[in-house]
């Protein structure tokens, strides 16, 4: 919210520089984004009278002016076409400063001395609204007489600073000049002076001009109306236009400007009705009727619904209460009599209406945040006072004021000790009383009891905690002490899930993998690129009702697509290799009942490409990772549809797949734009956590030697070596300590379609040295088992 500093100063002095002002306001609870000091940007510019204009000998467009600036006469060269002797103009003297940091220096222009510069409106940063001749071509020519040598800033309305406040959501009372002036006075320790509101009136009643009815009190707790007759429309004076301009509003005419000015000053949105256009001589505040529509001030036809509050006249709705007025009753140059409306509307109703119609206006924004019904009358009277001041019409004495259920005065019983304890600072009761009084609360102290009466405009203050905040923020947060936590403690520490995740991530990064974080929502089409079956549960994705865009509209049910996208990005940027992992939840929408949350499952996804990546390395990494958590997994050649069918596997713990891995299928690569081969793996972290076993006791080191045997078996090419090895280990029980595959051979001495697999076997007993006679039958049993189950024969 931008406010003219001068405007604030009418009600509260600011005896400090802008930086200190900003600091004080921020530290006492009123956010200040910035303070733009317009006055500081223009210095050394004074009123001067052009005495003479002479042609410049060396130029056909420059002229030489002699200018009286009061205490001296300057020679100034200008190229402006509109200068003439006798005019009053703004003169930037030697050393003057203009907006944008521009400095004016005396110099020579084409051989003629120039002791300054004559300024145009834009050069001084004066907006057209502030001074009528600003928009004219060339030098700004003053319209009235001013003392020569006088500072031009007050004349042009730029002797001000604009304070951009950042008002907190719970302080609608600060969305106005009086509000920030009240806070200014408290923050700076000065006094807040509310203006004395007196209205000169002519006899008459509102009823004589218009009949007002409020039908729906629940949505309109207060409605105040006052009539001004014999309206005299005209432009507003400079001070009013400058104040509106500082707030970022355009001046329209005196009446509209008064309503805006009063809104900015008091926080009450106001509306002025042209009574000649109010049909049937009545204003009705009521809910919209079914099927009713209205053409709003912006020229659009709006369909309304019966939960919306309307301002209607004898024939139909003329405005949407608290949102926008109607085209019909606009104030125009020929307005004779008018009605000022200042109402309080239910904030939720305004919010819903504004949402439903997609209309957000200055007024609706204020009503949504909350406008105080108690001060509505004051705002109308203030507007009427300005009508008096500007001579914009005759204010009729009568007032329509519908306020059937005045908000009760809120009283809060507090304890000084409790407030101090909550704050952790000992604040004396007397100090609390003083602070609360400065904030316009009534506070009475009796021992520890502090009885507080909340001013009407502070709708946000509901209980002792709020009082504590009020006291503390003015007392000063810098007085807060810092104490260590006391009292009963809790065990603390990371959750098992986070510990497991940290361990998995540490293993991965040490082994050369980089962690990534992708968005949790993706394009719904992405899942199609995986080539999943039609009934795959991952196809049932959780949709957002209001996504930023289609590309981020469903919660991902698998991490694979975003990993593939990230790999594609790295390939497209010619990064020669990448090993990436992401640990994140996926959202299982399948089987979710409406109103219930989806199941969130933690998954680890790995993706890699580049010279050092191969399937076996990835497989063993996953096996080691599972092994790290005490899970021994079995490898089976079953992958996902998006894997290369010959290079894909699942890792099973028991019967459940805890991980899948594989090379990306060429079709998948094509779908995701991966020119190079890539590996992909997914691991179920929830399953890992559920099956994780703590490490048990270690085995003692052997005391007796092992007997080793090598064994070469010839078997069909499609027999999985891992399965044979598992069988060997089983068949060699209990003395086979270790079995490894050390060579797989295909070629000359082996038949086509066969392979020779060499195993090294180590047998050992814990309590004796094994003899050949013990090992030989076991070896024979192993060979026999392999022959029986896999048709493998001992190689000759």
């Amino acid at each position, binding site marked *: 919210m931008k406010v003219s500093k001068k405007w604030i100063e009418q009600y509260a002095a600011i005896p400090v520089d802008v930086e200190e002002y900003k600091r004080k306001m921020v*530290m006492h609870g009123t956010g200040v984004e910035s303070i733009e000091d317009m006055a500081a940007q223009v210095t050394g510019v004074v009123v001067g009278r052009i005495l003479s204009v002479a042609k410049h000998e060396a130029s056909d467009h420059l002229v030489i002016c002699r200018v009286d600036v009061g205490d001296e006469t300057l020679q100034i060269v200008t190229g402006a076409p509109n200068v003439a002797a006798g005019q009053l103009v703004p003169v930037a003297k030697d050393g003057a400063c203009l907006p944008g940091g521009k400095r004016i220096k005396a110099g020579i222009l084409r051989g003629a001395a120039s002791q300054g510069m004559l300024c145009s409106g834009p050069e001084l940063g004066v907006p057209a609204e502030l001074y009528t001749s600003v928009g004219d071509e060339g030098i700004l020519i003053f319209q009235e007489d001013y003392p020569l040598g006088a500072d031009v800033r007050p004349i042009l309305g730029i002797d001000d600073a604009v304070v951009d406040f950042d008002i907190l*959501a719970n302080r609608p009372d600060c969305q106005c000049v009086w509000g920030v002036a009240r806070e200014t006075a408290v923050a700076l320790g000065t006094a807040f002076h509310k203006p004395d509101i007196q209205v000169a009136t002519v006899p008459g009643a509102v009823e004589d001009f218009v009949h007002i009815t409020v039908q729906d009190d629940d949505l309109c707790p207060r409605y105040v109306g006052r009539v001004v007759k014999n309206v005299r429309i005209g432009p507003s004076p400079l001070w009013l236009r400058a104040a509106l301009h500082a707030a970022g509003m355009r001046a329209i005419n005196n009446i509209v400007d008064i309503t805006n000015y009063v809104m900015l000053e008091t926080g009450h949105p106001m509306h002025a009705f042209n009574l000649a256009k109010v049909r049937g001589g009545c204003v009705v505040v009521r809910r919209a009727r079914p099927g009713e529509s209205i053409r709003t001030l912006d020229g659009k036809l709006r369909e309304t619904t019966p939960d919306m509050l309307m301002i209607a006249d004898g024939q139909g709705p003329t405005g949407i209460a608290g949102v926008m007025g109607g085209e019909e009753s606009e104030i125009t140059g020929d307005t004779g009599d008018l009605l000022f409306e200042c109402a309080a509307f239910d904030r939720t109703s305004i919010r819903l209406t504004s949402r439903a119609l997609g209309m957000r206006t200055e007024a609706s924004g204020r009503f*949504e945040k909350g406008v105080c019904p108690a001060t509505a009358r004051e705002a109308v009277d203030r507007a009427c006072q300005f009508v008096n001041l500007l001579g914009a019409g005759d204010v009729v004495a009568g007032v329509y004021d519908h306020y059937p259920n005045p908000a009760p005065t809120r009283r809060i019983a507090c304890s000084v000790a409790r407030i101090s304890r909550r704050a*952790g600072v000992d604040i004396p009761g007397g100090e609390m009383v003083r602070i609360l009084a400065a904030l316009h609360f009534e506070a009475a102290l009796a021992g520890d009891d502090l009885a507080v009466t909340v001013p009407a405009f502070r709708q946000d203050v509901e*209980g002792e905690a709020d009082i*504590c905040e009020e006291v503390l923020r003015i007392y000063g947060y810098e007085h807060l002490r810092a104490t260590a936590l006391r009292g009963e403690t*809790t065990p603390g520490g990371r959750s098992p899930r986070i510990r497991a995740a940290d361990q998995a991530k540490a293993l991965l990064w040490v082994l050369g993998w980089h962690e990534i974080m992708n968005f949790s929502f993706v394009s719904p089409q992405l899942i199609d690129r995986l080539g999943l079956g039609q009934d795959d549960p991952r196809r049932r994705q959780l949709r957002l009702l209001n996504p930023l865009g289609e590309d981020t509209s469903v919660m991902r049910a698998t991490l694979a697509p975003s990993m593939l996208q990230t790999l594609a990005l790295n390939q497209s940027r010619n990064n020669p290799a990448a090993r990436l992992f992401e640990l994140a939840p996926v959202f299982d929408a399948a089987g979710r009942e409406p109103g219930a949350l989806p199941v969130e499952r933690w998954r680890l996804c790995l993706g890699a490409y580049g010279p050092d990546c191969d399937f076996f390395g990835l497989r063993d990494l996953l096996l080691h990772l599972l092994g790290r958590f005490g899970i021994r997994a079995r490898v089976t050649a079953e992958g996902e549809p998006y894997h290369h069918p010959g290079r894909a596997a699942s890792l099973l713990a028991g019967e459940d797949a805890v991980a899948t891995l594989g090379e990306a299928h060429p079709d998948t690569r094509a779908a995701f734009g991966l020119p190079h081969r890539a590996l992909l793996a997914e691991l179920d972290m929830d399953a890992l956590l559920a099956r994780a076993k703590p490490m048990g006791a270690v085995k003692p080191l052997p005391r007796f030697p092992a007997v080793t045997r090598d064994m070469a078996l010839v078997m069909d090419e499609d027999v999985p070596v891992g399965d044979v090895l598992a069988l060997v280990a089983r068949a060699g029980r209990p003395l086979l300590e270790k079995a490894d595959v050390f060579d797989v051979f295909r070629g000359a001495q082996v038949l086509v379609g066969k392979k020779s697999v060499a195993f090294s076997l180590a047998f050992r007993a814990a309590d004796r040295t094994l003899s050949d006679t013990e090992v030989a039958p076991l070896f024979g049993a192993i060979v026999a088992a392999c022959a029986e189950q896999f048709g493998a024969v001992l190689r000759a």
Partner: protein
Amino acid sequence: MNVQEAIVSLLQTVQEELQHIADSQGLEGVRLRMLGKKGELTALLRAMGQVPPEDRPAIGQMINEAREKAVALLDARGQWIAARERALALANERIDVTQPVPGPGLGALHPISLVLGEVLDVFTGMGFEVVEGPEVELDLFNFEMMNMPPNHPARDAQDTFYIEDKIVLRTHTSPVQARIMTTRKPPIRIVCPGRVYRADEVDATHSPVFHQLEGLVVGEDVTMADLKGTLDAFAQRLYGPDITTRFRPSFFPFTEPSAEVDLTCSACRGKGCRVCKGTGWIEVLGSGMVNPRVLDMCGIASDRYSGFAFGVGLERIAMLRYDIQDMRLLYEGDVRFLSQFR
């Protein structure tokens, strides 16, 4: 030439020859030539028969001494050669220790994980328990129990993604407060990290997905001074002992009083710089005393217990710490960015 002269000449020859011998093969040659079965010294011994018997003992002794001397010479040379050959062998095994070789090297955690890890260390060290909550959350926990009833204007500040009317992507980690307070009794000391969502378009300083860490302490007689003490300790553990906190009044529906918390700028240690825009402070946390209404809604008696809560944006800490100018880098996964972290 008599035997004596022959011995002297022989020893001299050995001495001279050995000076030119540099390998064990050559050394063995000399040894054989002198001491072998057909060696010259052996030949002298064999020639003893021709020596008159009375001279034999003396000559024999001379030959034996010469033999011992030759052996000593050979051994000395042998040791020198062994040392030389070992040195040569080691030199031959020399590798170029500067030669780069291909390989993946170390990977790295994501900067958010690095920052979170540190933050969790600090808080678990203070006895906080780390808990988590769902990212797709009930409106009830995300808003209502955080004192933002339906149509509360504070909801507007948190552009919310909806799944259904009453189901949202959590806009902050605060709903975990409600989940914990409705299921546990004080004392409560928790921190809750996680992803949160706001409908912000992606740009250099905004992302619709980001990370927060929520902290909550509820107990008897928990004060705002405890909040400040906790956050001071956090700031100093994270950035150094010269860092202080500055509390500024603020508003959050679920805390009262509320405060924004600035930390001394860690880049300039408070002197004022580009990072802190010359103020010496960086805005890092939101915090406050848990609103009694929130306690009561969660079934914790606000007349007996009090508490404080705080929230910190992890992206902000990471971006400040690593001088990351564009937030998009955090989520696009370019390995050239990721590999800079350690």
